[in-house]
């Protein structure tokens, strides 16, 4: 079983790669859409701005390829941070941009009323998890996980949400729909608890 990490030419893949590698998974960095043919599961990482991310995914031909492998072939897919946000219908970060449209959701800015709460929110936050899903097997219901973000996925369909945290308002921390799972937090930076989620993804059979 091979896990493909989508490299659309942005951000640092090393940490994500290292986490899967550390857990004994066979990992392949996918720099072209054709590389996705050889993998069984897909990871979409991402750090940076939404606009750059989606325009690179569109330009490199990853948009169609991801639709094919994730949506049509049903390969288990995991998005991390911006890799989660890009799965929404659209984002309002720096304008209005379309996403992959896998989740009925929009990406909007965090909007805490409390002025002590800064944007971006950076650090360990207590996240509430729906531990009945296989991806959170062995996890506590409240887990401290590492986040770095200014925008988040606001879901139309609340049943897609499997983790939330509170930043003066509820913030989507993870979503799950069929074979697609995505987290706003960085499991590859969240020590043991993060690695457990990655390990659950490695063994996941949706």
């Amino acid at each position: 079983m091979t896990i493909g990490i989508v490299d659309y030419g942005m951000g640092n893949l090393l940490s994500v790669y290292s986490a899967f590698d550390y857990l004994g998974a066979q990992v392949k960095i996918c720099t072209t859409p054709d590389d996705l043919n050889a993998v069984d599961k897909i990871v979409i990482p991402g750090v940076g701005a939404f606009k750059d991310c989606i325009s690179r995914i569109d330009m490199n031909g990853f948009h169609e390829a991801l639709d094919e492998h994730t949506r049509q072939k049903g390969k288990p897919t995991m998005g991390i941070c911006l890799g989660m946000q890009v799965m929404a219908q659209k984002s309002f970060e720096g304008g209005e941009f379309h996403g992959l449209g896998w989740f009925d959701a929009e990406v909007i800015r965090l909007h805490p009323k409390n002025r002590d709460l800064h944007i971006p929110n950076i650090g360990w936050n207590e996240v509430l998890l729906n531990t009945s899903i296989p991806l959170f097997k062995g996890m506590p219901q409240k887990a401290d996980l590492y986040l770095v973000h200014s925008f988040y996925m606001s879901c139309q369909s609340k049943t897609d949400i499997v983790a939330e945290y509170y930043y003066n308002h509820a913030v989507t921390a993870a979503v799950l729909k069929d074979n697609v799972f995505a987290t706003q937090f960085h499991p590859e930076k969240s020590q043991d608890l993060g690695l457990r989620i990655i390990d659950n993804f490695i063994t996941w059979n949706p």
Partner: protein
Amino acid sequence: MARKRLIPKLQLMTSSYRTDKMVLVITRQFHDVTEIGDAVSQSKIYQDQGADELIFINIDRENKNIRMLAEIIHKVSEEIFMPITVGGGVSDEEHFRILLANGADKISMNTAAVSDPSFISLASAKYGAQCVVISIDYKLNAQGQYRVCTRNGTEETNLHPVEWAIECEKRGAGELLLSSISHDGMRDGLDITLTKQIADAVGIPVITSGGCGLAQHFAEGYLYGHAHAVAAGTFFAHRDQNFMQTRSQIKNAGVDIRVYT
């Protein structure tokens, strides 16, 4: 709100025994260097003890080789799964790129930012504010004034740390790392006064360091210094000091800190 953070600061220097190798050191007042071991194995200990992040700073005054630093970070990031800040000799965009590609999450800089503050804005626009940490080394000079120092504490500038901190935030810094040169390695407590002045003056997270010798010193940094994070080098380098223990003591003092399970 994000939890308060507890961060080991790992200072690196070229080994006096092997010039091709960088080792972990501790210092007192930015002098009196003691070599204490290997950065990668020490990082693993910190990870097992549940540190919230790690900071690596090359404090060698001669060797500012970014590639050498990047190699260490690369090795660390293969086994360490928490946020990593790296600095020491970072002076251009290429340094940012190299360190980020090798596993750094945030880049810290001091001297380069003071010499050319516009570089802060440039780095922030390109890599995002969350990635740009400005390291502020400061001391009380003979006239009793706080001054920012550059080049590993060897050069005193005319900048007051509070004014400089505000300037850094305006220019797009995402976080500040304060180090008191006078308290460094002395284990006599943090500079709470200056930490509080800066933390209250800016809207970005402030990491304070220099002087932690007791768990109580950390608690003071959060509670009275209003710091978002406290970093320490010497304190954790001594093996009898353990994160889990320190963390519980800090938590018991009323600080919202992650309890490692």
